[in-house]
């Protein structure tokens, strides 16, 4: 075995099951690494004591010969958007500093049932609003490939911790790209499943019609194992998809008809939307993505030209719908029952104003204002309703594409990770950079980021794969085949060997 921190979920699971290593050993080792790399800013709360306790109990059960779940003893950590019992749940906001939830999110409890050992809570943009993790009230996260750059966001803590080999995998959430974009910026693998695959119970809501949980890990294989454990129907979420539990690992390994060992993707039609390759796409990203697509061709896939004509419109559509929902979802943070309350106020209105002004950061306030505006009387039809219509048309465009191809591919983001602070004065520039991840979010489709190579400054570039509804298995199979043939996903940033 190589050093423990280089092992992924699947390998660790096997090593643990065969008792080559104990969960306590793995957890202790990673806790040491996390301490050593505190400067990355990945963890908001480290739960060392409880993690070791859980690991010890799993080791004991294994020693007694109990049959355990395949992930038993594997360490992970949760994006601090998921609420957890017995640990703070902040959503990266001062508003919830010190808040403790009386219950666990469904994703958290399912992973615990599968035997995963949670080491704590991971940094993220405040209420998952952002694409650089610079909007966290508790400080930025640094990209392990270049600590002067952002790791992406909003699941920046999750992505950076996995990339830095502090964890084999972590949970994340994706509303407009918050799993895929940080996975791309940090050189790891992440999947946002179809809307409804993972329960939203216990996820601090940003935009309810878009929020989805998913794993960030080092490989498609690891993502498949985690996704199988964290997904499934939940009666506490009315938007949860009613279908039987899925074995994504088996789906990933199922052979395509007509496939062979050298051409595992024979017959797979990959659609390339011409709008995903605009002139403005950074040259390094374009070249890396095209090279990866050539590798897919080598694996037997065929590339097909398709069109998603409303790709650009997905930006205004998203930045109307998501803030609209957010403005309402964040209404509960009023200082009355929990969360931040101003120390001094003269009356009720003053308490609301001061508590919210002090508790929310600038990006959250910006989105609350946008959302309140687009829902207000006289503007609703022109903005919100219009955006909803376009959202349906964007979903129709995908439906049209999937008559011509099996998966859609393109870049995750127009550039590699930018420098910390580079977009401080221009929030709109950051919004525009979401262009390739927003369409799948608006349509509710599964999307994935797969390490495809390296661009400017040696920074990772991710390839995005988008599947039809509930076609996670197809995405994972394509990504897995690519990862069997390449080693981009296995590269380790310097200093984190």
């Amino acid at each position, binding site marked *: 075995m190589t050093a423990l921190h280089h092992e992924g979920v699947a390998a660790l699971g096997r090593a643990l099951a065969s008792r080559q290593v104990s969960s306590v050993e793995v957890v202790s080792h990673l806790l040491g690494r996390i301490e050593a790399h505190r400067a990355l800013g990945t963890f908001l709360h480290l739960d060392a004591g409880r993690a070791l306790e859980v690991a010890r109990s799993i080791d004991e059960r294994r020693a007694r010969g109990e049959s355990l779940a395949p992930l038993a003893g594997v360490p992970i950590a949760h994006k601090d958007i*998921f*609420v957890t019992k017995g640990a703070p*749940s902040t*959503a990266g906001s001062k508003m*919830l500093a010190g*808040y403790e*939830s*009386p*219950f666990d*999110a469904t994703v958290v409890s399912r992973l615990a049932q599968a035997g995963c050992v949670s080491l704590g809570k991971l940094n993220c943009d405040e209420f998952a609003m952002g694409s650089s993790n610079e909007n966290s009230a508790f400080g930025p996260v640094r990209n392990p490939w270049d600590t002067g750059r952002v790791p992406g966001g909003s699941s920046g803590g999750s992505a950076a911790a996995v990339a830095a080999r502090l964890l084999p995998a972590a949970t994340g959430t994706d509303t407009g790209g918050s799993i895929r974009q940080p996975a791309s910026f940090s050189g790891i693998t992440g999947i946002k499943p179809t809307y409804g695959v993972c329960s*939203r*119970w*216990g*996820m*601090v*809501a940003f*935009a*309810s*019609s878009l929020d989805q949980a998913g794993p960030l890990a080092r490989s498609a294989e690891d993502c498949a194992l985690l996704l199988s454990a964290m997904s499934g129907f939940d*009666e*506490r*979420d*009315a*938007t949860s998809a009613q279908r039987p539990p899925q074995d994504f690992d088996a789906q990933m390994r199922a052979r395509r008809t007509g496939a062979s060992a050298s051409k595992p993707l024979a017959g797979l039609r990959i659609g390339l939307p011409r709008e995903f390759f605009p002139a403005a796409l950074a040259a390094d990203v374009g070249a890396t993505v095209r090279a990866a697509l050539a590798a897919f061709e080598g694996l037997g896939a065929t590339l097909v030209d398709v069109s998603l004509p409303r790709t650009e419109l997905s930006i205004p559509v998203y930045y109307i719908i998501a803030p*609209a*929902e957010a*403005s*309402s979802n*964040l*209404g*509960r*943070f*009023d200082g*009355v*029952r*929990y969360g931040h309350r101003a120390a001094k106020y003269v009356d*009720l209105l003053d308490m*609301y104003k001061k508590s919210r002004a002090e508790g929310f950061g600038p990006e959250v306030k910006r989105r609350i204002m946008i959302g*309140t505006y687009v*829902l*207000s*009387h006289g503007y*609703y039809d022109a903005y*919100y309703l219009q955006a909803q219509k376009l959202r349906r048309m964007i979903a129709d465009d995908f439906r049209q594409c999937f008559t011509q191809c099996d998966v859609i591919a393109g870049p995750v983001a127009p550039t590699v990770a930018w420098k910390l602070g580079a977009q401080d004065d221009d929030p709109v520039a950051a919004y525009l950079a979401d262009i390739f991840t927003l369409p799948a979010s608006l349509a509710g489709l599964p999307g994935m980021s797969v390490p495809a190579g390296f661009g400017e400054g040696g920074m990772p570039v991710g390839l995005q794969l988008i599947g039809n509804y509930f076609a996670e298995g197809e995405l994972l199979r394509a990504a897995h085949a690519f990862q069997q043939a390449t080693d981009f996903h296995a590269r380790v940033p310097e200093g984190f060997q």
Partner: protein
Amino acid sequence: MSALVRGYEVVIGLETHAQLSTASKIFSGASTAFGAAPNTQACAVDLALPGTLPVMNRGAVERAIQFGLAVGAKIAPLSIFARKNYFYPDLPKGYQISQYEIPVVQGGTVDIAVGEHRKTVRLTRAHLEEDAGKSLHEEVHGMTGIDLNRAGTPLLEIVSEPDMRSSAEAVAYARELHKTVVWLGICDGNMQEGSFRCDANVSVRKPGAPFGTRREIKNLNSFKFLQQAIDFEVQWQIDRLEDGLPIEQATVLFNPDSGETRAMRSKEDAHDYRYFPDPDLPPLVIAPEWVERARREMPELPGAMAARFERDDGLSAYDASMMTQSLAFARYYETARDGSKQPKLVANWLMGELSKRLNTQGRDLGDSPVAPTTLAALIARVADGTVSNSGARQVFDALWSGEGTDVDGLIAAKGLKQLNDTGAMEKIVDEVIAANAKSVEEYRAGKGKAFNALVGQVMKASKGQANPAQASELLKKKLGAP
């Protein structure tokens, strides 16, 4: 009956909130029971803790469907939950989940009567929504307390068209609506506890003029307050207009102590609620099978039941409508009728003796100390001549005051059994005729009063046990025509 008030026509529409009788809340599993210690019936969803989500309670939907069927409305095959956004400390999420553009119940009518005047009030809609919590301004020293037990309680908001033209019509409508929801068992109808409350939209206009500007009186939780509030408001509006002042659209509160309405907020302060479809809840889809299932589980409606009582029991239309004034009344009637086989007598007793006592003591039929089976036993004894009507009233008194529940036992104990033995009766009649020659003479001379005296003597001689009808008959037979 659009009687004008000082030359003005009154226009009223009501918005009624009926709390639905589900055991748990509309979007959470917490109990809806009234009266628990503050905040003991509020779960994580009701408190709007981060990460919580609403899940629709199907029982609330079923109740809405049944209401819609009862008022002849359209049950929307697809309706949408929307968020009504505003800040208030007893509104935990910062929004109320309601229905806005597409409600579950659309249209429908309610028939009302004020005296002899009948009319049909049209319903606009009825929609499902959640209640807010309560702000306790008086009970917490110098601060406002928040009790979230009520937060998330299911409500059906029933909106009428502005079809009512007097406070009496408004009250008749509210009473009819109240009867309907209680009859269906979808609401307990308890107005003191706020389970059924009305907002009244009131305006006045000169006959033939367009609608005047309305003011909305909020939260009227008794029929009396509803009437008083509208009456005051109408006078207030007419005073304004007569003084040449405009009416401004406003929300007003009624103060039961002063009997006055006072503006709470004007249109300028009106909230922009920023309604939009709730992304946490998929559209409410009601398949025809669901409607049919709800229909099957509904009790027979009062109109159909009254028609049946007329047809099968031979009741008059008036009696039949009285027997269906509430489901409890109808059930009482049916049980007593089945036990006695005397529909008309049962109806008379229910409208007479029983109602009189209930009204005097301000009790509900449910609290009646006389069970319907007991009343049936008594009525059966009246019908078979065992006891006279006046004797039966004495027995009823005894039953009411809890002296016992055995009708025959009470008749015997009180010596109220009528003498129905013809031989014994003839003997008494003969003795009375012999002993009262003067009265007999007078009767034969054509003095009707004398006959009554003879009947009285028979009753006296029998110690009240003679059947007066039988006594008269025998006397007439023996004395011959006067």
